[in-house]
């Protein structure tokens, strides 16, 4: 076989891929146009296969070489990712969820978005990614150059020249595919489908060679195992440090490699595909690794000493005359290399254009706009710029890869080159884990960790990888910079004898994590960072479709669309009719017809003012800025919105408080009014009562005095009538006395005559005095004389009057056949409480409030005595004595409670 066959074969393969990619792209386009989902193109199977971009030429060629050199160690590179995928529930699930929720476009975007949308952090990650990927791309170029070389042993071939042409070809292919269009989600259906096909090609090729080795060269698995045992070398023994370290490193790499992030998170169509990939991808890795050791063993035994083990996959069938198989292996290796280069270049180009080129261009445009040289924003221009930036980035990245290959000489083991890349990308790990799980991780910390870790990696692994004397001088490698021994790149801080890779991995990650944590602990995050940290760490608590304040990019709406958006928004706020008339007027003002004015600053100012009237200035500004300015709502805007909202809330709270107060006042007024009405009614009834009460005796006095004026009255009759007149006038006098007394008491003008006495004596006196009322009724008295031994110092006369009144009432109104009166005395603090309880039927509930009113008489039948002023007077007396009299319901009869202070202080009385 010669180049005459290989080159057309490779070209034919590339054209085949191109066709597949275009077909997939077109199919996806057609499906999208008809509103359907591209189901197969976005199936879990295609997703899993696209993940196989992890298996590059390193796997295809390098793994066998690795196995021939170090035995089973090559498996760590696949066991690490297996663990990460098997444990997808921990980390990948969250990563993909966040990636989708935040519409992340690359790993640099994820990190920068989490740390307050800091472009500086994004730039650092991008730079690390570009530097770290360079050796990886060089590895692919080297493998392709080697594979061409393997077939053309006789011909003179310059590998560097060949690699250059390969790089140019791949750059073209990637540019054609990866930058055909700008997708809002950064998803590339065509490329992903092509990658999935390539995954099948490389798997089939490697399996074919493996099966041929196991069943063709050897006699089945058992025989193969025996041969492996024969081929075993002492250096195949597992080195514990490297075994553990590389498993970890590979697990980290699958998370942080830009191309893996691209296919795993950015190109992910459905979270649930991850569930399938969790076992299918490890299965793929296992299938890829299954025949590595047999091929290595067969190569070691059958091929001449000194042949490059990295090419066993190719040279073994070639040397044994299996040209078809060799061709398949060649295509498999070619496909493995191209898929990696394409995806890595696309991913890196996205990062470079989004984090470096576009911000720089925008800044320069802004400066130009400030000087009035160019319009500040032009959407169509932008699109072309982004695409061109990506095309350029792809070229530069492949150029760097070629440069690395050219400088490093292209003769090193493939696996060793790949691991340098892994260790470089691993520097993103602390910031990534912090982003996902630690609220306190801050921008300063992330930037510090990335820079420190990146520098440590450069110094201890990347720069030395060119070999002594190329970039770092041999003297520096051996003695350290300026002869400082503990700064030697392979023995940092005196750690000697460690494997250079482990040494670099340990120091770079240790320094990285230390700087990250220290920086985070010491710095104070900005508000955006806090918002984003909550969005990331608590992604499960936030609805999936939730639009975070920062998830919006700048919109590329044309002016017409913007005006339409503005109208839609304004309608929601101002109401349809008002918004439409405002827009129409503005449009007419601009000399146009219709409803959609050009979004000139003047119009926007007016609209903002209009909206501000409804939603507040800051909100209006933020809303308009979001549609027109296309810029992110800044946190200052949000703060202003928040403070405005807070103010409005405060106002409404105040209003609420005021309205409550008003309601309270109204209630009080209503109550006062009711009281006044009641008082008025009382006054009226009092007047009518009193005139009635006065009138009755007056009538009889007048009648009898008229009779007396007649001459025909006998002496006997005169005496009788005179007594009646006398009685009536006494009654009248008593009534007037009572009224006078009541009025004096009510006005508080009464003079109290404070004396000392025992309560028991008072009650005795009251009982004696009231015996005159209905003297024929016999009352059973129940008293506790011992309780009554209370010395009082109050107006004894008035108090006795109250007691007499209460006891007389009991005598008058108790309707029991065997009437009984219980007098209970208690002392509570300085207060004396005397209860008078009889066993009659008591006073009905509705009347209990009335009995203390003037002229309140419950029934006419008991009109026997007084004018109904007794209890009213009693109450006034008790108030004057600093006490009270109240009806005590629920005692099995009428019960009155008289309570008063045992010692009436002159001062307390004055206060009343």
């Amino acid at each position, binding site marked *: 076989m010669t180049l005459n066959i290989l080159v057309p074969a490779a070209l034919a393969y590339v054209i085949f891929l191109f066709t597949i990619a275009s077909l997939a792209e077109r199919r996806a386009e057609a499906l999208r146009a008809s509103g359907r989902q591209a189901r197969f193109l976005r199936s879990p199977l295609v997703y899993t296969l696209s993940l196989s971009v992890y298996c590059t030429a390193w796997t295809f060629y390098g793994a066998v070489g690795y196995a021939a050199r170090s035995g*089973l160690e090559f498996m760590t590179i696949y066991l690490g990712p297996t663990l990460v995928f098997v*444990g997808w529930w921990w980390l990948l699930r969250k990563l993909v969820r966040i990636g989708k929720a935040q519409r992340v476009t690359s790993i640099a975007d994820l990190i920068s978005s989490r740390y307050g949308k800091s472009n500086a952090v994004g730039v650092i990650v991008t730079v690390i990614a570009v530097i770290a990927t360079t050796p990886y791309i060089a590895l692919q170029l080297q493998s392709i150059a080697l594979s061409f070389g393997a077939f053309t042993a006789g011909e003179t071939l310059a590998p560097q020249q060949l690699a250059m042409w390969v790089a140019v070809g791949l750059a073209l292919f990637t540019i054609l595919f990866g930058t055909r269009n700008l997708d*809002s989600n950064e998803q590339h259906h065509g490329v992903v489908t092509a990658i999935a096909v390539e995954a099948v090609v490389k798997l089939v090729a490697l399996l074919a060679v493996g099966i041929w080795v196991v069943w063709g060269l050897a006699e089945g698995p058992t025989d193969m195992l025996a041969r492996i045992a024969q081929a075993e070398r002492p250096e195949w023994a597992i080195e514990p440090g490297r075994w*553990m370290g590389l498993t970890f490193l590979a697990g980290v790499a699958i998370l942080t490699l830009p191309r893996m992030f691209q296919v795993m998170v950015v190109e992910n169509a459905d979270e649930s595909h991850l569930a399938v990939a969790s076992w299918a991808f490890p299965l793929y890795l*296992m299938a890829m690794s299954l025949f590595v050791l047999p091929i290595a063993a067969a190569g070691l035994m059958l091929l001449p000493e000194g042949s490059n083990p990295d090419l066993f996959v190719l040279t073994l069938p070639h040397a044994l005359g299996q040209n078809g198989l060799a061709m398949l292996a060649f295509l498999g290796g070619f496909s493995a290399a191209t898929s990696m280069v394409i995806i890595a270049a696309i991913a890196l180009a996205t990062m470079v254009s989004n984090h470096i080129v576009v911000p720089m261009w925008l800044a320069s445009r802004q400066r130009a706009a400030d000087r009035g040289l160019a319009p500040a924003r032009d959407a169509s221009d932008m699109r072309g710029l982004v695409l061109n930036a990506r095309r350029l980035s792809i070229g530069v990245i492949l150029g760097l890869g070629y440069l690395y290959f050219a400088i490093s000489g292209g003769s090193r083991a493939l696996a060793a080159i790949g691991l340098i890349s892994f260790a470089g990308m691993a520097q993103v790990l602390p910031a990534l884990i912090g982003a996902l799980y630690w609220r306190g991780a801050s921008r300063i910390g992330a930037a510090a960790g990335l820079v420190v870790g990146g520098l440590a990696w450069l110094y201890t692994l990347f720069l030395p990888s060119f070999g002594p004397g190329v970039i770092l001088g041999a003297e520096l490698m051996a003695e350290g910079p300026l002869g400082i021994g503990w700064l030697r790149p392979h023995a940092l801080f005196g750690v000697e004898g460690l494997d250079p890779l482990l040494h670099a991995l340990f120091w770079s990650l240790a320094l990285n994590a230390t700087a990250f944590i220290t920086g985070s602990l010491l710095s104070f995050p900005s508000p955006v960072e806090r918002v984003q940290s909550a969005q990331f760490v608590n992604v499960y608590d936030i609805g999936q*479709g939730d639009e975070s304040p920062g998830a919006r990019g700048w919109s*590329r709406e044309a002016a017409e669309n913007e005006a339409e958006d503005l109208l839609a928004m304004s309608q929601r706020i101002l109401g349809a009719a008002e918004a439409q008339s405002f827009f129409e007027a503005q449009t007419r003002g601009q000399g146009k017809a219709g409803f959609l004015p050009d979004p000139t600053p003047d119009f926007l100012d007016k609209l903002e003012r209009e909206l501000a009237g409804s939603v507040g200035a800051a909100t209006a500004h933020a809303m308009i800025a979001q549609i027109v300015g296309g810029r992110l709502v800044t946190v200052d805007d949000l703060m202003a919105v928040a403070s405005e909202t807070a103010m409005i809330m405060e106002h409404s709270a105040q209003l609420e408080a005021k309205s409550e107060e008003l309601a309270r006042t109204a209630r009080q007024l209503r109550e006062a009014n009711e009281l006044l009405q009641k008082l008025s009614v009382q006054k009226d009834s009092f007047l009518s009562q009193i005139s009635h009460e006065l009138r009755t005796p007056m009538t009889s006095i007048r009648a009898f005095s008229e009779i007396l004026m007649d001459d025909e009255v006998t002496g006997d009759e005169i005496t009788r009538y005179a007594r009646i007149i006398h009685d009536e006038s006494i009654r009248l006098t008593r009534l007037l006395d009572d009224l006078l007394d009541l009025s004096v008491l009510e006005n508080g003008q009464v003079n109290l005559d404070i004396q000392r006495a025992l309560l028991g004596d008072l009650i005795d006196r009251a009982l004696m005095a009231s015996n005159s009322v209905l003297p024929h009724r016999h009352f059973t008295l129940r008293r506790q004389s011992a309780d009554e031994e209370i010395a009082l110092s109050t107006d004894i006369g008035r108090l006795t009057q109250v007691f007499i009144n209460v006891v007389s009432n009991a005598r008058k109104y108790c309707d029991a056949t065997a009437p009984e009166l219980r007098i209970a005395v208690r002392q509570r603090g300085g207060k004396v409480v005397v209860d008078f309880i009889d066993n009659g039927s008591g006073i009905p509930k509705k009347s209990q409030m009335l009995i203390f009113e003037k002229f309140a008489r419950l029934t006419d039948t008991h009109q026997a005595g007084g004018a109904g002023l007794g209890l009213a007077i009693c109450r006034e007396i008790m108030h004057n004595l600093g006490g009270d009299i109240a009806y005590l319901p629920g005692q099995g009869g009428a019960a009155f409670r008289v309570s008063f202070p045992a010692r009436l202080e002159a001062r307390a009385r004055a206060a009343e």
Partner: protein
Amino acid sequence: MKPPRAPLFLQRETYRRRRIMDAARILPVVGFVLILLPVLWTRGRALSTAAEAVYLFVLWLVLVLAAAALSRPLRAALKRDAEAAERRASPAPDEGAP
């Protein structure tokens, strides 16, 4: 005759789902420990490279099978979760990203 015992947990399915999630979390830890096992064997050179390879591939297959067994119920849980989230939130407007 004994009366049928009342189930101890009312929401058996939810409980089972949570334990499956636990299992999914433990699986990689177990896998890591088992992957490190050959390191210990190497000390004594008890096994040949071929035997270690057989062990590792068998372990690999077991991990794949375990993950496959867990993936179906986890996928269902994921779907339910996503649907719940969808219901909670209003559909996000389609928008361009830089």
